[in-house]
């Protein structure tokens, strides 16, 4: 084949009939939505009371509605070129900050399970942190898409970090450690791909690593009056993850028993999740035949969101787990392909940011289910039940499709 001839290039320019949709990724996303609906059904329709509730109150149906809303939102976003969207990134970022602050105000944010993360809009519990992730990705992509030379200056570098840390701190205050944590690798990877000098990044990673280690050592091992202030349950979660039971040596037998019971309670979720995943075996027990969920061993409160993967693993076994992993792999790798084919650095950074965001959530959530990671409240994109999470994930995928739509012509 020779060089493209003039008529061919003309044809190509005029004929923008290249595909506007990355069909592979869209297929994988549809697959994930189907899996999500099926297993939210299985996780929630366990007793007659749930089955007798009106359709609008049944979780799987609401999940389908959110899928529709999210898909609609993603479609709407795709109509607009992502360059235009990026111009509004700082506005979106500002609104997000305002919402994050609003959630922290006692009268405005609603408390559930000891955390103040939601804004109660009546029919819908709006969780700003989900949208904050997208806003951070958009804002960072826009900020980092300036000429490479500017990125080598320290001022830009610190501003980028500040851009990331502000929402991070606000989300951490809610408290929502999981969502906050996800922002860090996203920002780091985006900075790396953008071209921030490697030595800055290495110093950053090294510094954070040292701080984290010191933090962990202090929380886990230091005597009480040296310890940093953490919520009790957060400290217990970390101790449970590392398998440490710290009972002060001068505890009375009753106190010792009480502490051991507490640890047992905290370990309960993880233990039941492990039993769910492990007892699935190769092929699982069958859809809606999982006993861990039906009998309530996997707590009902978390079975349909944070631990939905345990339900899938129990009911469909190793085969099901690998299928889910494959679907996510397809989404992530097509996302990277889209990043490679993006027309400009903004698109590239957007795609990379979304991919890292999704990957972090997948890794933390599935890791949590098999005790590779400590328990944090990170939802599994598209599979966990939750309007904000679903809509946010779908909009993120919509952003990737948007970048794909306006990609390089060859």
């Amino acid at each position, binding site marked *: 084949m020779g060089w493209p001839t003039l008529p061919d290039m003309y044809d190509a320019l005029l004929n923008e009939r290249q595909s506007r949709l990355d069909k*592979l990724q869209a297929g994988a996303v549809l697959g994930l939505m189907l899996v999500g609906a099926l297993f939210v059904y299985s996780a929630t329709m366990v007793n007659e*009371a749930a089955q007798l509730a009106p359709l609008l109150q049944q979780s799987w149906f609401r999940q389908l509605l959110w899928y529709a809303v999210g898909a609609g939102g993603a479609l709407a976003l795709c109509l607009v070129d992502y360059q235009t969207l990026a111009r509004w990134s700082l506005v979106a970022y500002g609104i997000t900050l305002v919402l994050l602050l609003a959630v922290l105000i006692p*009268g405005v944010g609603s408390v559930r399970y000891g955390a103040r993360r939601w804004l109660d809009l009546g029919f819908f519990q709006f969780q700003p942190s989900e949208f904050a992730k997208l806003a951070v990705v958009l804002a960072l992509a826009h900020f980092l898409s300036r000429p490479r030379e500017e990125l080598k200056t320290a001022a830009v570098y610190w501003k980028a970090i500040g851009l990331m840390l502000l929402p991070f701190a606000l989300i951490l205050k809610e408290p929502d450690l999981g969502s906050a944590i996800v922002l860090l690798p996203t920002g780091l*990877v985006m900075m*790396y*791909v953008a*071209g921030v000098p490697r030595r800055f990044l290495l110093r950053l990673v090294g510094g954070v690593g040292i701080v984290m280690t010191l933090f962990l050592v202090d929380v886990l091992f230091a005597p009480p009056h040296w310890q940093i202030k953490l919520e009790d349950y957060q400290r217990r979660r970390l101790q449970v993850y590392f398998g440490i039971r710290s009972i002060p040596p001068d505890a009375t037998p009753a106190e010792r028993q009480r502490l051991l019971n507490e640890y047992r309670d905290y370990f309960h979720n993880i233990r039941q999740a*492990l*039993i769910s*995943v*492990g*007892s*699935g*075996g*190769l092929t699982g027990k069958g859809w809606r035949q999982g*006993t*861990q969920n*039906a*009998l*309530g*061993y996997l707590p009902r409160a978390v079975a349909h969101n944070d631990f939905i993967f345990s339900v899938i*693993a129990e009911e469909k*076994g*190793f085969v099901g*787990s*690998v299928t889910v*992993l494959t679907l*996510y*792999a*397809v989404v*992530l*790798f*097509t996302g*990277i*392909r889209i*990043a*490679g084919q993006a027309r400009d650095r903004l698109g590239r950074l957007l795609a*990379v940011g979304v*991919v*890292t965001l999704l*990957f972090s959530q*997948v*890794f933390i959530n*599935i*890791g949590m289910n*098999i005790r*590779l990671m400590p328990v944090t409240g990170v939802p599994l994109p598209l599979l966990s039940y939750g309007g904000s999470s679903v809509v946010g994930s779908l909009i993120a995928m919509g952003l990737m499709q948007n970048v794909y739509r306006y990609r390089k012509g060859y």
Partner: protein
Amino acid sequence: MLIFDQLKKNDPPLRALTLGVLIGLGVLLVGLWWVQIVLARGYQASLETQSFRTVRVPAPRGRILDRHGVALAENRPRFNIGLYLEELSPQFRATYQQARPRQVITNALPAWTRWLGFHTVKTQYVKLNRAESDALQWAVRTAVVSNTVAELATRLQQPVPFDPAQFRRHYQSRRALPYPALVDLAPVQVARFQEQDAGLLAADLEIQSLRVYPFQATAAHVLGYLTSDDTSHPGEEASPSYRLPDYRGLVGIEGGYDAQLRGRAGAKSVLVNILGYRESEVVWSANEPGRNAVLTLDVRMQKAAEQALVRSGVNVRGAAVVMDVRNGDILALASVPAPNPNHFVQGFPPGELAKLNHPTLRPQINRATQEHYAPGSIFKVIVGLACLENGLNPRATYRVQPNPANPGRGIIYVGRRSFRDLASPGDYDFRRALLKSSNAYFIAQGLQVAGIENIVKLGQRLHLGERVNLGTRQETAGVFPSLRQVTGGNWRDGDTANLCLGQGPIAVTPLQMAVMTAAIANGGTVFWPRLVARLEARTDEAGPATAEETFPAARVRNTLGVSDRSLRWLHEAMLADTEDPEGTAYKPFREYYRQPHAWRVCGKTGTAQVMDAHNRLTGHTTWFIAYAPYEAPRYAVVVMVEDGGSGGGTCAPIARDIFTALQRLETGGANGLAYTP
């Protein structure tokens, strides 16, 4: 290819990102493989441990039948009403939500929030601490169950008691099993419960197996009794989570053959949810029913023997044994007073439990096999046999001296001791001495003709002082001197004289005396007595087939080794005891012999003195041994009464009544001994 395109591209950051994602997903894959493939079995076992409970289900106990197949101990269904807590669980939750305390809080909200529709007055749940919420949950559960029980009472049209403490114990230890609201329903109540629409109530009938003894206290000692015992036996599931009520036999056939009667318990597994409520259950291993035991007893003869004993006086303490002389089968083994084995299973009526431990009545002792007594004059048959074998001329007379203190009675002096006689002085031959039970005659002949060694050897052939191995855990061997004892330096003539009277170091059980009587009656064969004829084969479908286990009849233990001639003389002398006007048992049998076709009964009376530690007389043990018919002996009957008046006065009439009944049973016809199950 999707991934490899990214890796090949000349785009290091994206390549690094691809690698990173690939490694991350790979780590997850390995982790999932580790948990779901490698450790799968361990997690499955954990799941089963936490969500399954095993229940030990006892097997139906084998029945105990008499020789004609009449059930002496059997099982009947016992109906309980159980409340299923898992079905009440939604009510618990709903009631708890209603019962939770609420508080009203007023928010002074700024005007703009009120315009948006937020309210100033809200009710919200009061936050309870752990102890308070636990207490509220208990109160709610108790209330719901109490209401359900009240509803049940309305449907049954009778009061149903409810004990909150008992419910709490059940909830804490046996939540997966139904709570027994009402136990042991009568058939009327069962019918009433079933015809109501019981599906609306979280209750259902539970069936358990209850041991009943239809004949109440008849053959109580032979049958034995049960105690609650639900421990696991070898061959069963070792440690179930729950055990349903089960029993174990303590004495008697229930005790001695408990392993065969109880079968083998099965197990069922119950699936429970996180709160401990039952989800479903499945039978894991079926139970194997126990085997029936068929006894040699005839319940009609047993009842006849017991009635004869009881009718003879007030608070009679005694025993009667009826044995088939041809093969050693025990046809009746009665001991009074007797407890009612139904009480041990169903509960004692007020006052009965105290009677069980009465120091004199001692109803729990099987006086036929478990207690030994001095035989007294009935031992003279053995002394007489020994004398006859050693050359005694039965026709020769012996003169008995009168007692100087009481000239109407005889006396004999042995060394420095004197032995008084109840019989009058005069000339006695063998026949007259036996029928009048002359002490002097037998002491003299025993000392001079037989000698103590021959007497002891004959007693040893009868295996006196040894166990009979009946298998009912209610046995004593009795006491009998050994040859070494009597040939050692310490044995005096006075001791021999005592032994000839059946006193001294000799104590026998009525069963041993029955074996002796049968040996005399059947011509010299000493049989092992047989109580259990066979253990029946299991004929039901489930489980491995087990062959019938038969215990052979007519097992010979020994022979008397005496000549027919001696036995004939003894037979005649014993016949005379009831037929001769001078006989000690003549009076009771006089009316009996007036009946047409009455059997000719050979017997011997006995009265033994019971001494306390200071050698003071505290009472008499009275005996009567007999066999009939004289021409072709079939039945041996031994009657013993503690503290009776005399052998002839107390025990012989009882034996006579027993023979009357036996004869009626043989000839059939209306006999008034109807079965009353």
